């Protein structure tokens, strides 16, 4: 899945450091956003580039325009209230822009 700057891409809406909430959605088909982070708030750690939407590729469609892909960082204890590891442990999840809402 190499990044290709020549194909149409949706502009990014979020920047590094922004607080974002993962949509609490449960669509059918192929979904790359893990269940455990849905509805939770994290911070944009980096913008990874823009890639065709895998949820569309899963139906043999183009997935274009390409969507910004972000790496979002969560506190583990925020995702799992009974988390027993260190308080500053984090989990990073890569997810596409249409899964994110501003939580500023």
């Amino acid at each position: 899945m190499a990044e290709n700057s020549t194909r149409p891409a949706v502009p990014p809406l979020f920047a590094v450091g922004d607080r974002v909430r993962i949509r609490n959605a449960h669509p059918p088909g192929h979904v790359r956003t893990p269940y455990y982070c849905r509805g939770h708030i994290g911070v944009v750690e980096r913008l990874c580039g823009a890639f065709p939407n895998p949820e569309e590729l899963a139906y043999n469609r183009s997935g274009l325009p390409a969507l910004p892909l972000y790496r979002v960082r969560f506190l583990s204890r925020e995702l799992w209230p009974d988390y027993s590891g260190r308080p500053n442990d984090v989990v990073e999840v890569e997810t596409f822009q249409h899964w994110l809402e501003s939580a500023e």
Partner: protein
Amino acid sequence: MDDPGHRNHDLGGRPAGRCARDEHEYEAWEKRVDALMMVLWTRANAITVDELRRYIEELGPAAYDEYSYYERWMHGITQALLQRGLISVEDLGKKMAEIEAREHG
């Protein structure tokens, strides 16, 4: 797992116990399934990785849990080729019967 939106394949974050870290050899048929997927994906443009994942994720919970890794791939590849019209259900059935007869007949 009370939430019907929490799909069976989405294992992340669930209690799982210890992971087996031992290495194991792959069977010849498993290597063949891997090679078939690579050829169909990169040479024949007959499937995408995302389609493979969709068919695997759409397996019923019992089948998903029971199938091994490459059995799931075999299911996904088969579904993609049927869906794209590259093979027919009838041809597939005939071939399966032929192999069954050859191996056990």
